[in-house]
């Protein structure tokens, strides 16, 4: 007993306990659901066999069924576009704004803080607001564009299958910019001012300073922001629920929303799990990049 007590106080016991706590949390709340999801993707699951493990295994049937769906390919490419375009524009616009607010002008920090207002709004609310903006017949955006003489007829942002995905992307970009900007602002603030001063004395132009000082020193933050951006974008569910429900005719459907539709609208929970597993694989790759980029940060 005494020995245990000593180990606990002075030795590695306490460290082990802390590690076990964190590990236990991860096992219960992350690893278990992940594994459960993978198991379900190989089983025939419906709503009424959710609680028991005793379900028929069907091998790769669920996988071939999901991949064989005619909508699989379009939904996959929609997801690629959704993630790619969202992250690209969130990053470039967010980075641009971060650089802008790095300038010293009155109210810069206040204005930067205001940008966060958009980010703290729940996705459903953002979806509802964008729904009003993008509505076809009486939407704000159509009204503005028509008043400016930019378009003649109305654009049915949400119900025209050739544009509905991009409406979702636009709303998601708006939603992600503040987060990108704040994280990148923090990174920018950490770059010592004297580096820039020295470069300026040596005659480096603004563009030169950006390319040779800002970008290399921001590498870790950029990597982190891109990885988190990809993960958040793959999580984006509420926007679709509020804007288009993946429609019309799957034109704006993405994997994460489809997984939900399969599981909870059609009760094909095994197949829904397959889609989740595919997304997990992708997120694991992205998470790996994220971990690498933050590790470099410590090393550098």
């Amino acid at each position: 007993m005494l020995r245990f007590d000593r180990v606990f106080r002075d030795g590695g016991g306490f460290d082990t306990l802390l590690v076990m706590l964190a590990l236990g949390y991860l096992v219960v709340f992350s690893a278990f659901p992940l594994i459960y999801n993978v198991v379900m993707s190989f089983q025939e699951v419906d709503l009424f066999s959710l609680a028991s493990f005793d379900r028929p295994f069907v091998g790769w049937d669920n996988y071939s069924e999901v991949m064989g769906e005619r909508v699989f390919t379009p939904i996959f490419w929609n997801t690629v576009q959704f993630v790619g375009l969202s992250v690209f524009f969130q990053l470039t616009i967010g980075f641009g704004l971060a650089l802008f607010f790095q300038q010293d002008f009155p109210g810069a920090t206040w204005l930067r803080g205001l940008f966060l207002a958009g980010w703290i709004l729940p996705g459903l609310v953002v979806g509802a607001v964008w729904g009003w903006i993008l509505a076809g017949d009486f939407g704000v955006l159509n009204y503005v564009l028509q008043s400016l003489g930019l378009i003649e007829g109305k654009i049915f942002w949400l119900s025209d299958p050739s544009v509905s995905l991009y409406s979702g992307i636009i709303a998601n970009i708006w939603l992600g910019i503040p987060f990108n900007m704040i994280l990148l602002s923090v990174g920018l603030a950490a770059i010592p001012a004297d580096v820039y001063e020295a470069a300026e004395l040596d005659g480096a132009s603004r563009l030169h300073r950006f390319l040779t000082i800002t970008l290399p020193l921001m590498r870790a933050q950029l990597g982190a922001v891109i990885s988190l951006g990809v993960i958040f974008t793959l999580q984006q569910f509420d926007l679709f629920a509020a804007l288009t429900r993946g429609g019309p005719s799957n034109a704006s459907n993405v994997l994460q929303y489809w997984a939900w539709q399969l599981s909870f609208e059609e009760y094909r929970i095994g197949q829904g799990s397959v889609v989740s597993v595919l997304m997990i694989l992708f997120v694991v790759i992205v998470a790996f990049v994220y971990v690498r980029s933050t590790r470099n940060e410590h090393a550098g």
Partner: protein
Amino acid sequence: MIIQRLLTSAAFAVAAVPALAETVTIDLWTIDRPGEYHYVMAEEFMKANPDIIVNVRSVQFEDMVNDLARAVSTGDAPDVTYIDNPEVALFASRGLLLDMKPMIDKSSVIKPDQIYPGPLASVTYEGGIYGIPRGANTIALYYNADMYKAAGLDPDNPPKTWDELYAAAKALTKPEENIYGLAFSAVGTEEGTFQFLPWLQMAGGDFNNVNTPGAVTALNLWKQFIDEGLASPDTLIRGQWDSTGTFNAGSAAMSISGPWELPRMSEEAKFDYRVALLPAPSADAPRASALGEGDNVILANTDQPEAAFKFVEYMYSQMPRVWNEFGYMPAYPVDVADPKHAAAYAVFVESMKYARNRGPHAEWPKISKAVQDAIQSTLTGQAPAEQALADAQAKIDGVLGQ
């Protein structure tokens, strides 16, 4: 396993306590909020039966199926609950609902042959009766009589056939004033199926036979409404409530929806609105209409079947009140003294006679999804109606063949 057994025995222990005190407790789940139907019913029933306590719990409409399935598998399901009518077969087929037929046969209150055929079919599964409709609803054609007059149409003679509906929609559409001829919903959810199924049924098809010439005609007519600008393209992503909102605002001259619109319409619509039966393919074609609203069901593993059935009986007996107090159509013919929205009520009562069930089938959500996909891919121009319906038929055959 052990945990489950412990939980069950604990549940028995809890249930045993009120039995000793000679009062019985039944749990009721509902999609209502306090003050609405089930809360009122529970309160009145408890007053009349002091030995029975009804615990009411609200569940979101969209969550009902999921929550119920989870509750059944963890062993804490309610005794009585509300289920939307297409889902009765889903639960009944898995043996989760109590077959009330033996009790109904002895009942002096519930007489199944009174109930309209549509609502009765929705609770019947393989010869058993697994639920009692708490009411019903259906759809019909709302139209703006003022716009009819302005367009030179006769407001006392609303469209009776699909051709007349098309002609009226065309005459009423005024793009320069942002007015569409018709509002309806072709959204890719259960609501889309709800709206399309009567069209399919009037043209001779049904959920198990969607690839018919009549269905092709119906779907092409829907496409025409949208392609020619007689209905908003947003019809594809908008439910019935929002679509009828545009009618109330004067942006659509007609709207296909149900009686649940009337309270809002009587407040918002500043014009002479009227209701007509859903137009049919031709004057002599059989009529059909959608069937909505849900049922009071008893779970199979209830430990208080008598008390639960008594409560269901009580709710059934209150049918004459549902229209004026709660806004549902009665599920069997009753005399409603001084009905609200009398003219519209008369049309909906007539329409109830033609209301047909969705299914019933234990895999209804999958069938419904196939129908939604056919509607959406035709209306977006991704596939011609013939091909979209053939695809849907193939999927439905797959489900039915299981």
